[in-house]
């Protein structure tokens, strides 16, 4: 009976709040922001901070979906000083933002900003999906500030016979015309491409909804994920051109021909402890594409985890909180000596509630602005 009442009230059901773990804007430049989650009251107990690097295509709050299903919240509770990049929404002028601007510029700056919050100037970096690919590329050229690297479902081998690989390698696929015409490559196009990877997914989701509609917790999680899944971002055209041409079409990352700001990217120079995580039912980043990082990187301490689950569900769910997340914490524990708990970092807070659709105001350094509504 509850199943039917829940289904009937679906349209009027209050939308679950997403991305609500308290965070402050630590740094901002152009459209991207570096968020710092507020430390737990007991203080931070790991000497090295953690930087989360999400994909450019989706919103950052997938890693902070909702209470109980938030990786950021979990890591804060474990005593980490957690930072996350919010790539923001590119404006029309950002069509000229290049791969170098993002990976060497913005990502490099974010890593340095986080690393410099501690005396030993190192940070753990966790890259999810495309964020993992970008971090691997950056880390191969600038390994100095990275203590350890976790690549969560991050593609490294692109010529893998998948639909996306085949589509971008077709003779008729005119990348330059696409970028020229669209400027920022529209999220609708990217979304359609992902939907083609599993055209039956909407039906499957509807069936799961029918099946578990009696469960309020499931419904809230379902609605939160749908809210995130429909909140996509367009990609800067020049960035997309390099990403597709050099990675999907020529697979240069594994062959060593890829260049970042003129410097050759060789994954064997990525020497920090590295963990690559792939998922069995990931139809966006197939397992071998993510696992290729382990063979290619030069780390002595490297590990590959292949877990059941899909691209998003295995990372953001109650199940992930019991299976994946503790393994990630164990990886960090192995590569970081715990220290005596220190008091939570003092952050001068200037209350400035963010308006919907408007980025919160902030200064670039130090003085942070409270953005409890960062994920609006």
């Amino acid at each position, binding site marked *: 009976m509850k199943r039917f009442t829940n289904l009937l009230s679906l349209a009027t059901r209050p939308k679950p709040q997403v991305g609500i773990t308290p965070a402050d804007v630590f740094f901002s*430049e152009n459209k991207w922001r570096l968020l710092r989650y507020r430390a737990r009251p007991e203080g931070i107990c790991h000497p090295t901070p953690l930087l989360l690097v999400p994909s450019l295509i989706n919103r950052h709050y997938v890693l902070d979906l909702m209470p109980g299903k938030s990786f950021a919240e979990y890591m804060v509770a474990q005593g980490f000083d957690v930072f996350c990049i919010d790539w923001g929404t590119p404006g*029309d*002028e950002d069509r000229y933002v290049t791969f170098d601007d993002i990976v060497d*510029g913005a990502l490099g700056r974010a890593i340095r900003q986080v690393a410099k919050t501690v005396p030993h100037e190192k940070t753990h970096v966790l890259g999810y999906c495309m964020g993992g690919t970008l971090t691997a590329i950056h880390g191969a050229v600038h390994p100095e500030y990275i203590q350890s690297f976790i690549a969560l479902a991050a593609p490294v081998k692109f010529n893998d016979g998948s639909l996306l690989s085949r589509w971008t390698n077709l003779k008729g696929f005119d990348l330059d015309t696409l970028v020229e015409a*669209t400027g920022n490559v529209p999220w609708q196009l990217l979304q359609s491409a992902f939907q*083609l990877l599993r055209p039956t997914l909407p039906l499957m989701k509807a*069936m799961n909804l029918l*099946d578990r509609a009696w469960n309020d917790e499931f419904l809230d999680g379902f609605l939160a994920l749908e809210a995130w899944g429909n909140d996509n971002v367009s990609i800067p055209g020049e960035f997309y051109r390099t990403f597709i041409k050099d990675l999907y079409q020529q697979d240069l990352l594994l062959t060593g021909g890829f260049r970042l700001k003129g410097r050759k990217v060789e994954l064997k120079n990525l020497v920090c402890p590295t963990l690559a995580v792939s998922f069995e039912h990931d139809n966006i980043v197939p397992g071998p594409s993510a696992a290729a990082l382990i063979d290619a990187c030069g780390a002595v301490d490297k590990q590959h985890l292949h877990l059941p689950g899909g691209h998003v569900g295995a990372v953001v769910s109650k199940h992930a909180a019991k299976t994946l997340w503790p393994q990630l914490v164990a990886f960090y524990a192995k590569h970081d000596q715990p220290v005596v708990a220190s008091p939570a970092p003092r952050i001068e807070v200037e209350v400035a509630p963010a308006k919907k659709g408007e980025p919160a105001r902030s200064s670039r350094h130090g003085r942070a602005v409270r953005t409890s509504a960062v994920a609006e």
Partner: protein
Amino acid sequence: MMIWDQWKKGFDTWEQKTADMLESVLKSPTVLQPMTGLLTSTMKVKSATEKAAAQWWGALGLPTKREQEKTLHALNQIQSRLIDLEERLAELKKN
């Protein structure tokens, strides 16, 4: 409940098989090529239309959308360079 479970099981099997079948269909160049061709043609038309509109706009002596975008981008680049300099200065001060 038994009927529902049976039905769900059947659906899951059907979904898996259909998804596999659709994947092989969509991967086929026979399907992928025309879809890609259509996308490229649409983009060419969009590009040509915008170019014509920009030329007309430019003929009136007004800045085109592209020119405004380039200017804004240049401003953003200057901001980035300034932050680079700030970082270097901070580094020098520290040393």
